[in-house]
């Protein structure tokens, strides 16, 4: 058991290098947005979905309707649905362990465990790895939030981290769908239309318009049929 933990600790090092600075930035944003520092700990411990947590800061500060919060969580995290196809949950033994393992099935956890390198890892090693990664994220967020609450005033311009995060995620997602120009175009149009027509409920309206557009394209069969 101890060797599983030690191996998992080593496996987690590379991802930890990315999670810690981002976690610090997240925590800093939480307190700079006016929320108490321990909300950074609560978000990262209870929700544990990096990019969505960044968004939730803004939604929460604006007291967005819970339906918007739920729909945003759904759409930002819908990509996780397909992680079940190759994540080695069958190796994780026990109800509680399986529950935690699915709860902590983040992009990073999936990326590390779905590769060929992980084929020989035991369920315990996978579980330890997930636990270490959440500790980095929640720990760094808490430290960042505490730092932020001691800073005098606010750091102007720090909120750009969220814009940069989604610019990067959009670029990566677009690269995965090279050649599929209608999808980002449809999304862009949905977002701009929602901004102009429903400025108070932009996110909700944009998601609904985009999903309706995609469905219409799928059902009329005009778009390319490849999945």
């Amino acid at each position: 058991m101890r060797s599983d933990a030690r191996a998992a600790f080593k496996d987690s090092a590379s991802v930890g290098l990315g999670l810690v600075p981002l976690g610090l930035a997240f925590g800093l944003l939480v307190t700079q947005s006016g929320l108490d520092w321990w909300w950074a700990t609560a978000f990262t411990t209870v929700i544990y979905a990096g990019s969505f947590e960044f968004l939730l800061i803004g939604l929460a500060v604006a007291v967005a309707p819970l339906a918007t919060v739920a729909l945003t969580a759904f759409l930002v995290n819908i990509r996780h649905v397909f992680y079940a196809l190759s994540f080695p949950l069958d190796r994780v033994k026990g109800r509680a362990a399986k529950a935690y393992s699915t709860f902590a099935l983040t992009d990073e956890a999936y990326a590390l465990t779905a590769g060929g390198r992980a084929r020989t890892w035991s369920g315990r090693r996978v579980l330890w790895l997930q636990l270490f990664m959440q500790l980095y994220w929640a720990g760094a967020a808490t430290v960042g939030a505490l730092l932020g609450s001691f800073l005098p005033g606010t750091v102007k311009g720090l909120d750009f981290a969220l814009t940069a995060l989604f610019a990067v995620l959009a670029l990566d997602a677009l690269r995965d769908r090279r050649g599929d120009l209608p999808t980002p175009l449809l999304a862009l149009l949905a977002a701009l239309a929602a901004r102009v027509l429903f400025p108070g409920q932009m996110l909700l309206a944009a998601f609904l318009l985009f999903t309706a557009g995609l469905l219409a394209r799928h059902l009329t069969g005009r778009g390319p049929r490849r999945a």
Partner: protein
Amino acid sequence: MPDTPYLVAAVVVSAAVTWALRALPFAALAPLRSSATVRYLSTRMPAGVMVILLVYCLRDLPLTEPDVLATLFALAVTIGLHLWRRDALLSILGGTAVHVLLANTLFA
């Protein structure tokens, strides 16, 4: 500012939706795999959702004020860094650092 009951509800709702998306597919793999519509949506949604979220982040950009230049320049740095090195952390921290720098100096 949001009150504590609202924040607790927001966290619980978010956690429930996120965990459901991660856990339920293990129980419902077969129908998911065979649904052409689910497959169609799930392969196209991530790119579109990220584009929407990017526009959402820029929704209050002051188009007629010089401040807009700081954001656009930082965005160009972020995208440039990412096309060049493909290192998400470098792109995010680099772009943010440039924005903080500009917002506190040239555009203060």
